[in-house]
């Protein structure tokens, strides 16, 4: 794809790129040791020639984000050199990186929600004279950049009213407006639908063909294989190696990342479903904002995993929150193991035996500033053995935490550490440990593996299957079709707040086939959707 030189870093430092432009950015023996003694990056040599899409992969905590932050001036190396545009540079902050043509699209987007797309694109470098902002020029500039790059946006729309995909395109336009020649994308697909991901990749390729150097950070090896020219793998702060994407497989990359052979195939046995645990009939939900639901009817039996597929925003979040008791359905009946939960509060839902792993763990999953130990007892702090006569027993709380930390392999120095300081994967393990250790009759797991590394991902998979085998009914909601197909015994598809697909046998299902239902190209008839459900359609059809 690219003929530029890519020999290992044996050139004299500081002369890495000359007029031949063989290196756009490079790190030479870069080490970063944080003030608390953590060595996040160890002696990394990395060279990326212009016009290349370089994927940088690694587990959480492998140091890839820290390395990128050094390229963008958010962190300074403890030793070694950062080379941009052929010379060793000291980047004191994003402003100096931007001045050198380095742009970064952060994982949590750095946009001002109440500003328009155009205002965000020009923020900090606004067109206009004498301290005034020329609003029309901002819109025109944005529209021109969008047309040139193929990153479609509505310049006049408010950022908080556009899709996540458009927000991300706005971020890239921001970098283009600042004349970036090197673009760092930090996990850009984590929040995108498959279609949006495809559009993003097309745009990234166009940018590459125009000479842009792209550093693509990701966990998703399938996407890395699709988009990148070369892959650099990091593990525990060191660069393990760089391979041409064409020569790599997902399996070989995964092995490099974790240092041993690791597959995501959990090898689950066929489900042995017993009695119906979750019974949903004629459920409808009128949403003031967001997606409404209608005519939802399905069963989940003890001992099976039922997956819910769908493009994000088609009612999955609403469904999960209704089942967990966080929202009230407008009509319909929900029974969990014989208890009618539709009218109960959240505590009532928990008493009925429902466990819930929310999709947004940062906002709804844990109290980030509280300790791991406290987060592990929030659903059971008011009764023995943790409390006696309403008084909490600190030693029991600690012992409880130590047991779960051990059992769920949560990597932390101590149970008293605040959850905020954990990596995404370990944070999620705390939540999953809490929910599963309560021994739920029904587990609602929403986007369990979003943003967690491959090791933690496999761990979650094993735990979900183990919970199933122990007799729990599991409702698995995910944006990741590979994950759904790997874990689900049966699969439902949501589109526009309605069930449009039901697959009772997932063994032969392909992602492409399910995708047709997600997009609304195909759908099952009502008879097929409710086949075998007792009392389905007892309420008059609306």
């Amino acid at each position, binding site marked *: 794809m690219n003929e530029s030189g890519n020999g290992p870093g044996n050139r004299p430092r500081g002369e890495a790129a000359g007029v031949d432009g063989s290196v756009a950015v490079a790190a030479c023996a870069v080490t970063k040791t944080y003030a608390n003694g953590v060595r996040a990056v160890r002696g990394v040599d990395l060279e990326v020639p212009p016009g290349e899409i370089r994927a940088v992969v690694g587990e959480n905590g492998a140091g890839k984000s820290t390395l990128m932050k050094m390229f963008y001036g958010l962190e300074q190396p403890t030793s070694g050199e950062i080379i941009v545009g052929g010379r060793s540079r000291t980047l004191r*902050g*994003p*402003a100096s990186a*931007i001045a050198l043509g380095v742009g*970064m699209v*952060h994982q949590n*987007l*750095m*946009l*001002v*929600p*109440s*500003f328009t797309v155009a*205002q*965000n694109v020009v*923020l*900090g*470098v*606004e067109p*206009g004279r004498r*301290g*005034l*902002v020329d609003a029309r020029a901002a819109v025109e500039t944005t529209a021109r950049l969008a047309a040139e790059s193929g990153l479609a946006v509505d310049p006049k729309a408010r*950022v*908080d009213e556009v899709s996540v995909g458009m*927000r991300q395109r706005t971020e890239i336009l*921001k970098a283009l407006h600042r004349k970036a020649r090197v673009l760092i994308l930090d996990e850009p697909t984590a929040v995108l639908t498959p279609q949006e991901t495809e559009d993003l990749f097309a745009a990234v390729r166009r940018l590459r063909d125009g000479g842009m150097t792209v550093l693509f950070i990701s966990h998703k090896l399938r996407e890395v294989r699709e988009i990148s020219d070369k892959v650099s793998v990091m593990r525990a702060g060191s660069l393990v190696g760089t391979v041409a994407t064409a020569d790599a497989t997902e399996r070989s990359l995964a092995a490099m990342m974790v240092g041993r052979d690791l597959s995501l195939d959990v090898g689950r046995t066929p489900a042995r479903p017993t009695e119906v645990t979750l019974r949903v009939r004629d459920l409808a939900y009128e*949403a*003031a*904002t*967001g997606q409404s639901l209608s005519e939802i009817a399905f069963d989940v039996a003890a001992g099976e995993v039922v997956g819910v597929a769908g493009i994000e925003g088609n009612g999955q979040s609403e469904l999960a929150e209704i089942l967990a008791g966080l929202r009230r359905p407008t009509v319909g009946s929900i029974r969990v193991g014989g208890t009618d939960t539709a009218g109960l509060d959240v505590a009532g839902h928990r008493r009925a035996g429902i466990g819930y792993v929310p999709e*947004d763990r940062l*906002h709804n999953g844990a109290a980030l500033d509280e300790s791991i130990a406290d987060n592990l007892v929030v659903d059971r702090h008011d009764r023995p053995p943790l409390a006696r006569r309403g008084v909490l027993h600190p030693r029991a709380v600690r012992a409880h935490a130590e047991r779960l930390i051990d059992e769920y392999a949560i990597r932390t120095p101590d149970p008293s550490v605040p959850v905020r300081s954990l990596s995404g994967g370990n944070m999620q393990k705390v939540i999953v440990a809490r929910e599963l250790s309560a021994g739920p009759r029904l587990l609602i797991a929403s986007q369990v593996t979003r943003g967690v590394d491959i090791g933690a991902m496999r761990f979650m998979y094993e735990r979900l299957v183990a919970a199933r085998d122990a007799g729990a009914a599991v409702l698995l909601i995910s944006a990741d079709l590979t994950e759904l197909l790997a874990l689900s015994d049966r699969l439902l598809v949501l589109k526009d707040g309605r069930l449009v697909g039901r697959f009772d046998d997932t063994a032969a299902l392909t992602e492409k086939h399910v995708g047709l239902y997600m997009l609304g190209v195909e759908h099952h008839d009502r008879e097929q959707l409710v086949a075998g459900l007792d009392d389905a359609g007892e309420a008059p059809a609306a």
Partner: protein
Amino acid sequence: MSAVLDVVLSSAFLAAVLRIATPYLLAAFGGLVAERAGISNIALEGQMLAAACMGALVAGYSGSVALGALCGVALAVLLGLLLAALRLELGADAIIAGIGLNLLASGGTAYAVYTLLDDKGGTSGLKSGSLPTVTLPGVESIPLVGDVLSGQNMITWLAFLAAPLVAWLFYRTRFGFHLRAVGETPDAAESVGIPVRRVQYTGLALSGALAGAAGVFLSMGYVSFFVRDMTAGRGFIALAAVFLGGLRPWGVFLAALGFGAAEALAVQLGTLDVPPQLVSTIPYAMTLVALALYAWRRKRRGLAGGVAASL
């Protein structure tokens, strides 16, 4: 009842509304600028009080009303910068620091007046004068409008000009863009190279200046002397107007004007046969009603807000 209507529709009443609304408007805009910069300025009350006291004292001793007003506003700016420094350099909670500044202003002004004039009540013994009034040529001859507008203090004019000025600052100038970006998402502002702290210091200085103008008006326009704790909670009512107005310049303008009208009504009704105790509760009752209304509106918008917050 008709007596009440007669009062409310009189030009004297409307003129009183403009006059009484002046400190609310200025202080509310001060609060708005700080709020949009991301630091709640709960010290509006103290900044007004300190400016009122400083203005009357300097004008009284120097004989220059202009110098007095200038020094009053300057002191409020310094207090604004102090609040910003406490928040940004020392990491203090803006609310706690603001309460501290309010207490400092209340005690400090009383102490200064007592030390200088040996008077525990205020500076009525010191002849300090008022800021000039402004009458636009030709306005006087217009019926009703002429009576309402003519002879208003220059600071009242300034207060009403502040609404379009603040709106222009927020939505047309580069500084306004940066201020709003910094207040809403400091990380995003920083990532594009906006000097976040400098913008916040400037915003708090401007906030202090506006509150200072409100304070100077109290002691050098509304009346011509300083009285201990003469702000009487106006800074807090102005803060209520900031939120009631939805953090938008024209919304804040209407809310502050409404509070001014309520107080003017209370003053006018006091001359009629209405129990004075009841009358004097009007501005405060209106504040409560307004805040309940604001909370209700926010709750209704809560779902939409949640989407924005998850960005």
